[in-house]
């Protein structure tokens, strides 16, 4: 199992590199990287469903926002401490993804995309409708004093960076483990040929539902962590835009690779960051780069690496 060892070493060294970045990079980029790591967790959650199971959801913002509001409202409305609130965010996302998965998996292909999109829109409108509690578009700030984990104030740059890195590492390693497990192989089999997989005796519906729940829960935890670390929850995070972002990150980085989400998120974040210093029409530059990448590296950056150099990449 040489490939398994290589893969462990690779994943551990990426976590090590990210830890080292804190000491190397200037403060501005350290702040960016904290944000990127949390968003990469979101992308990794999305990748479980899109990259590995082959199901394209256009409504993942719903899960992200569910986690965010689960934590945010627990802390703000019910004055619950950060740790249990984090758990509540995760549980909310788990429940919502179970229900949405159960309903949406009655469809497939384009219909699945549309159904998930519609559910997410319904979720967004629900947040606006209950503006009295959610503060709608305006959102709400989670007071700095409450943002403590195990007695550590996580609003400071150092604590925030390492909290984000901790969460990222846990999910990163979890997914590395998941894709090597029999479950991981089965969802890839479903992606490659669902009818074949069913006729080999696998309960494909149950596997797909599990994939939606794992994906939705990870996305929700990312949402909760985002609210906790950056102190803000708002309806913007439930918009279509936030459903499309993880798709772009994953596509750019490489769908169905463990490294794709983090690579894609870093790439896209800095692409927008750098191009906006050059021109106001930064989305134009971002768009052109996206088109070029899709043309010349359709499997994303990590996918292309796997194809050309490291065939063993998980």
């Amino acid at each position: 199992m040489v490939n398994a060892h290589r893969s462990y070493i690779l994943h551990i060294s990426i976590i090590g590199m990210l830890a080292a970045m804190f000491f190397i990079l200037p403060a501005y980029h350290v702040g960016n990287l904290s944000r990127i790591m949390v968003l990469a967790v979101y992308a990794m959650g999305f990748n479980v469903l899109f990259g590995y199971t082959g199901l394209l959801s256009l409504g993942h913002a719903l899960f992200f926002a569910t986690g965010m509001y689960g934590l945010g409202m627990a802390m703000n409305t019910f004055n619950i401490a950060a740790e249990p609130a984090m758990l509540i965010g995760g549980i909310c996302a788990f429940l919502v993804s179970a229900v949405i998965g159960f309903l949406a998996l009655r469809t497939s292909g384009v219909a699945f995309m549309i159904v998930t999109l519609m559910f997410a829109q319904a979720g967004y409108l629900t947040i606006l409708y209950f503006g009295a509690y959610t503060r709608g578009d305006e959102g709400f700030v989670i007071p700095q004093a409450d943002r403590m984990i195990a007695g550590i104030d996580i609003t400071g740059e150092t604590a925030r960076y390492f909290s984000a890195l901790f969460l990222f590492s846990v999910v990163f390693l979890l997914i590395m483990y998941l894709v090597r497990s029999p479950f991981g192989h089965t969802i890839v089999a479903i992606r490659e040929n669902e009818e074949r997989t069913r006729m080999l005796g696998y309960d494909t519906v149950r596997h797909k539902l599990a994939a939606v729940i794992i994906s939705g829960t990870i996305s929700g935890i990312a949402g909760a962590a985002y609210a906790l670390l950056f102190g803000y929850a708002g309806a913007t995070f439930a918009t279509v835009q936030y459903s499309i972002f993880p798709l772009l990150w994953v596509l750019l980085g490489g769908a169905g690779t463990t490294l794709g989400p983090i690579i894609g998120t870093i790439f896209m974040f800095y692409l927008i960051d750098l191009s906006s210093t050059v021109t106001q029409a930064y989305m134009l530059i971002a768009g052109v780069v996206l088109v070029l990448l899709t043309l010349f590296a359709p499997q994303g950056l990590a996918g292309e690496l796997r194809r050309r150099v490291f065939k063993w990449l998980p």
Partner: protein
Amino acid sequence: MVAVNILTTKGLTKNYGGIKANTDIDFELQRGKVTALIGPNGAGKSTFVGMLCGRFPATRGEVFFEGQNISSLPAHKRIQLGIAYTFQITSVYSGLTLLENVAIAARRRLGKDFASVTEKVDSVLAQVGLSDRAYQIAGDLSYGHQRVLEIAMGLAQDPRLFILDEPTQGLAETEIDDFVKLIKSLAGETTILLIEHNMDVVMRTADQITVLEFGKTLASGTPDEIHRNEAVQAAYLGTAADA
């Protein structure tokens, strides 16, 4: 005492809209034998076996496997009981290696036991003569090899009943010979139901033959009986066997 028949059907019927693909088929499959299902194109052979393994839901009628009524079980549950099915139109994981293709088939039963999955995959690939191609991508194989891989994926499940839908379609003569040898080596422990157009293969392998025509059973019996049956000759063999 073990029943003679591993699988039986009663009044199995499938209608696609107004088209009657299968009408009231009563069928018995003898344990440990090779049974060939033959009949002209459009006779409803694929539909029939599709209903046996649950790929298509039956309009009405019942299927019994090992004495258990499996009519209401979904496909994956039936497969889990020990029925393996190979597709008429090759359906392998074209983006994955041969090794992984067979491993997916073996893993359903063997699960987390990596050692036995590996062992099973190796032995099956050796059995069908694809060992030296284990790391190739299935989609890059020749058509004939993909057909063989399809069979290997069935074997990896250690089925009690192995249903093969036109396995020799598009195979070269030498590959067909290998296939016949393989089927003969399986007979006895595994019950085999074979849909087959190649009458030579049928006559060399089958212990029992069932003939379907227009979605109904025309005749059932040993190859000799079928060969002598006038209704069958008129419908089918008269042209195909002499060809």
